[in-house]
């Protein structure tokens, strides 16, 4: 180490007059960037709205998964805002509402993204949500995702008539380091 310091001193003396316009303070890389990832999707058909064992119509379906992306340190420490885009193709002659619910590890809600009613046979429904971390810091504790789909009119769906409700979505994360 002494040798390196010696070299440093010699060369620094030589260079001393040449570096006045340079600064080595604040050498920090602080990018602000936007990253997009596919989020959730599904295509649900008519048979999911009928309980064939009990011969009962179904008006509400739900599914849950663990989702630990938000709790990754690089996301949790730097996320400013998240924007979720969703597209729906509803081929049923029913009105639906869908919602994406975020939960923490204790199943306490950290955020909820709910659609307006999707009209019967509406094939081009789009909905975008923005969530700012400053307003919703609990979102960073998200560990699970729940997707709920509700039929607004309580009239049974014919399980033999081929129809579907399709949702696609992606998320855009705004990060500042």
């Amino acid at each position, binding site marked *: *180490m002494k*040798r*390196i*310091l*010696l*070299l*440093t001193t*010699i*060369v*620094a003396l*030589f*260079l001393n007059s*040449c*570096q006045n*316009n*340079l*600064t*080595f303070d*604040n*050498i*920090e*890389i*602080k*990018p602000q*960037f*936007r*990253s*997009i*990832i*596919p*989020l*959730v*999707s*599904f295509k*649900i058909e008519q048979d*999911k709205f009928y309980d064939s064992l009990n011969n009962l119509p179904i008006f509400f*379906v*739900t*599914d*849950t*998964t*663990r*989702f*630990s992306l938000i709790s990754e340190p690089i996301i949790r420490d730097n996320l400013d805002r998240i924007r979720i*885009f969703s*597209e729906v193709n509803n081929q049923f002659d029913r009105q639906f509402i869908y919602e994406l619910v975020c939960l923490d590890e204790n199943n306490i809600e950290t955020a909820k993204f709910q659609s307006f009613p999707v009209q019967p046979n509406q094939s081009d429904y789009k909905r975008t949500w923005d969530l700012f971390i400053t307003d919703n810091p609990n979102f960073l504790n998200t560990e699970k*995702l729940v*997707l709920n*789909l509700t039929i607004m009119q309580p009239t049974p769906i014919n399980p033999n008539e081929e129809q579907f409700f399709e949702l*696609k*979505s*992606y998320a*855009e*994360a705004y*990060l500042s380091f």
Partner: protein
Amino acid sequence: MKKTIFYLLFFINYFVFSQQQLNFGFAESPQTLLLNPGAETNFNYHYGLPFLSNLNFDAGSTSFNLGDLFLDDGISFTDKLKSVVELSDENDFFNINVRNDILFGGFRLDEKSYVSFGFYQELDFIFYMPNDILELGLYGNATSFNRNFSFSHLRFKATTTGVLHAGVSKKINKRLNIGARAKIYSSSANVETNNNSGTLTTFNNPQNIIRQTINNLDVDVKSAGLFNSRGVFLDNPRDIYSNTFLGGNFGLGFDVGFTYHFTPDLELTASAIDIGFIRYKKDTRNFKAKGNFVFDGINFEFDPNNPRDYWDELEDEFDEKVPTEENQNAYTSLRPLRLNVALKYGFGEIRPKSCYTGTRKVYHSNSIGFQLHSVSRPGDSQYALTSFFENSFSENFHLKFTHTFNNYSDAIFGAALAFQWRTLNFVGVVDNISQAANLETADTFAFSLGINFVIK
């Protein structure tokens, strides 16, 4: 303090660009033996001033200069880095080479043979601009639909080495002098990656609006000496530099070279330096990732009879399709091979000078010539072509003026000075003189010196 030293070293290393090749074949100084073991010598003994017998710093960048990143102009470092990335492509690089002799000496074995030996430390670092990866990190992928971010841009190599060497320069006849030098390398640290492949792409897809894919990923990063045996990262330069003498990762190599006089006026010199390898097996830590993956997000099934944890399944699928591995396998790394060739024509006044044998020989007061220098790198080899004019004011005072074009610039002007006062032999080189007063805009800069004592 550590941080300060690091930045200072980085700063110094960056723009003190020593054209080692300017010393090549210059003034029969002892340092020339390290660039060409077949160089002619004209002394009976020499010993270097410890730590100052041969200092060489070498750094340069093909796409940016110091001012682009460090100018004190109120612009944030991040914005400057973005500008640099914008101006760069994956073939741009910056490299650093720092070399200092700890010990250097030599003696005449007989009338025809001169033996030299010593130990030097070397830091060698080259980093190719991984533009795709940098842009991904600086901007994200939101604005880069359909763009293939390539992992092949990831290429770098850094090595700290101690080199124990001994060589002999032997006069075969009046025309030919040959030489060779054996080297034992002892590397304290190395990190390198090359020949990576794979792309990360985001694009529109009917499955779920967008799809992300990893295609043909094959990334392999090897390292040694950066973590201790307990797996702790060594962030103190002292830990790395203190281990270059017989530190545990050994290698072997050799240099060869010759000097040939076609006529008394026309001389050809050539050398190959660092034909060798280092075998890393101590404190190694390597990382590998390989595979393909398609990501469409989470696809819910809504099947209460068969509940699934989609995220866990995705993680498992990713681990299966893109397996990553950390291991401590030994590996071999080739040394960067340096080639030097020079053709020199002497003219002007013919003067006598004394020889180590006590006899006299003649030399020209002036000479001109060309020299070619190349060094093998993880990417393409780097080349430098130098034309030079040498003037000897006396037997003991020599000047050399050069013009070099290389990967960094096509207008690098340099000067070298060598003189002998009694037994003191001094060689100094400054290159890229035209930008010496304004180093923040220099692509390269050169500085080297050597202080030895020679006895005829």
